[in-house]
């Protein structure tokens, strides 16, 4: 019995390590078009027909795929239904909930890294989590619909890091047309507003856990709608749990998983599996009924 417990513990330790390995590499894979530095033209090939399941600005010079929120705003602006996007995000949501936020999003990884800086920490009020739904409805759907502008993209701090700043620093001249790739007028008030929004978030990243994911990310808002019904869930052995709160300390979004095992905020990052009473489950049945994945595999 104890051998089985220790092998399960070891398996979860490996799963947690794997996540820290995958997070930065998903970002690199989504922005791997190095040819842009010589041709000064962004990639426009077939991979752009699909979008990555996490926030990744397709205006990044090296982007090889599209941003789901960029595409959502595009459809809102031209007043067409984003059938394919809805199907893709819905499928991901039903299968794994917000796991893409916890396992793939490089911006989430940046927030996790910056929070490790040792300083005084603050907790975001629970009610602030609803702001991301406002961000989804207002910035990513309503404003693009009525103004035809991509308002979330205009403010997105991750877009500023991987697209706004690189283009602003580089400002290349197209070798064929001998014209600036980015028109000089692009670096006006909105550009500096983007920089300001980024600066505010960068400061917040040091003091609080994943503030962008919890209060501003429209993609997180979409995935969180599926968290309660997703096939991938967290399971807590409530009989053995002593409510010590250690799971909340290690959780990147401040959830005490024994109190809210089906929380809409949970990223399925498995950090809370440092406690032997918390396990990952996969199945058609709800939490408390499914068998833990690792024990099934053992």
């Amino acid at each position, binding site marked *: 019995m104890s051998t089985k417990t220790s092998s399960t513990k070891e398996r979860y330790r490996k799963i947690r390590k794997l996540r820290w390995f995958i997070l930065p590499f998903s970002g690199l894979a989504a922005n791997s078009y190095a040819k842009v530095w010589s041709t000064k033209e*962004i*990639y*426009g090939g*077939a991979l*752009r*027909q*699909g*979008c990555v399941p996490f926030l990744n600005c*397709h*205006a990044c010079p090296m*982007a090889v*795929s*599209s*941003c789901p929120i*960029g*595409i959502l705003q*595009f459809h809102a602006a031209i007043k*067409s239904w*984003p*059938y*394919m*996007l*809805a*199907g*893709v995000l*819905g*499928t991901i949501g*039903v299968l794994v909930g917000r796991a893409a936020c916890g396992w793939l999003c490089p911006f989430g990884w940046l927030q996790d890294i910056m929070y490790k800086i040792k300083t005084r920490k603050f907790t975001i009020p629970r009610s602030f989590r609803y702001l991301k739904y406002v961000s989804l409805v207002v910035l990513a759907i309503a404003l693009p619909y009525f103004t035809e502008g991509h308002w979330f993209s205009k403010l997105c701090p991750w877009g500023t890091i991987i697209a706004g700043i690189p*283009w602003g620093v580089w400002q290349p001249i197209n070798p064929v047309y001998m014209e600036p*790739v*980015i028109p000089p007028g692009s670096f006006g008030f909105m550009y500096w507003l983007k920089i300001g929004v980024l600066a505010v978030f960068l400061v917040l990243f040091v003091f609080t856990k994943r503030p962008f994911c919890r209060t501003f990310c429209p993609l997180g808002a979409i995935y969180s709608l599926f968290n309660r*019904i997703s*096939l991938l869930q967290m399971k807590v052995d409530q009989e053995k749990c002593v409510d010590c709160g250690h799971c909340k300390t290690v959780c990147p979004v401040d959830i005490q998983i024994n109190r809210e095992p089906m929380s809409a905020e949970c990223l399925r990052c498995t950090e809370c599996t440092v406690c032997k009473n918390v396990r990952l489950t996969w199945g*058609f049945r709800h939490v408390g009924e499914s068998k833990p994945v690792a024990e099934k595999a053992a």
Partner: protein
Amino acid sequence: MLWGALLLIFAFLIFTGVRNGDLIMTQMESSTL
């Protein structure tokens, strides 16, 4: 049942999107700076 029905709906949405030309629209939109 619920999951099966949801996955079927989302598969249908993807199929509809592909037929509507979402792939090409996505490519054109994301390839423009």
